[in-house]
């Protein structure tokens, strides 16, 4: 059991290093009036991508996602980038912690 997990870790390490050499796709997300736009982004499975988040509000926001295991503070009127993936197919919701009633979004992996 232990060995198989270890093997899996090592193998995926190799898999990863071959993936990282490929170029990383960028996706632009804008925050305005505490809304993400686009609020849905579809990406390919097994690929690392980078989200370029542009916060046009004066207030800070925290990009957060439990299924994506991500948390990033974005100040008012500034940009930030968040690497995600490689991911398995599925739906991965994210939200803005500081204004989560409106700031909701979804990464769809196909």
């Amino acid at each position, binding site marked *: 059991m232990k060995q198989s997990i270890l093997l899996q870790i090592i193998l995926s390490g190799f898999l990863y290093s071959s993936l990282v050499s490929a170029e990383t796709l960028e996706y632009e997300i804008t925050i305005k009036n505490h809304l993400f736009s686009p609020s849905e982004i579809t990406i390919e499975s097994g690929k690392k991508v980078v989200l370029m988040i542009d916060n046009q509000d*004066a207030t800070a926001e925290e990009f957060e996602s*439990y299924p994506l295991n991500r*948390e990033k503070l974005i*100040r*008012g009127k500034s940009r930030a980038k968040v690497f995600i993936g490689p991911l398995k197919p599925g739906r991965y919701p994210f939200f803005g912690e*500081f204004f989560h009633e409106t700031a909701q979004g979804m990464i769809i992996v196909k």
Partner: protein
Amino acid sequence: MFETAIIVFREILEAAIVIGVIAAATQAIPNRNKWLLAGIFLGLLGAVLLAYLGSELSDFADGLGQELFNAGVVSIAVVMLAWQTIWMSTRGASISKDAKSTGLAIKEGQKALSVLLVIVGVAILREGSEIVIFLYGISASGAQANSMLLGGGIGLLSGVLVGFIIYTGLLHLPVRLFFKGTAILIAFLSAGMASQAANYLVQANKIPALVSPLWDLSSVLPNASLLGSFLQTLLGYNARPDGIQVVFYVVTLLTIFFAIKWLNHQNKRLTRKDAMS
């Protein structure tokens, strides 16, 4: 108002738990309160400074300064917490048994207190700067500043209360259980933070995630739940960890465990030598 209270509470929970445990662990050392207060003060000062100067920091390293800074700060906490639990399990126990006023005890106690200062300062610095940025952003946007301030205050007090409950809870344990319990808790805190450091580095694209996720318990006990976020801080629980996070976690725990074993073994050999001569 409630929203603000919850957000502030969640940010402060981790710092409160860390401080509660570490304050209990150093409870018997003279002058501890002074060092604890100094740590809190320096942490707050750093948090405000970081909030004001932080935009340069975020732009640093191609927009990944925040992750790298957090990874660095968390790593300092990992080392300090590891030192603390190793110290408690090897020297600390014997010192607290012997006379507290001996020169050695004071010297050793000072070391533990400077570690306390760093751990407390770092815990407040990290979470505190996020709270400052959040509250500043809202107040700058002109939204209801009063109810927001009230909410922030309620969140802060609830967080402090949780820390205090942990602190008094630990102090009420019987002595043997107290030493074992706090030492084990600190070891897990340290391992959990090592896993957090790994997560920051993965997020910044500096190290591979290996398997992502290694397991998925988010339908059983999500990190978003109250119990989940509590266990996340206390034991480093993660419902969907990356492989590399588990590696960091396990390596930290094993390092602490074997360091304690090895040092206790050395100590025993030394005392045996003393007894023979």
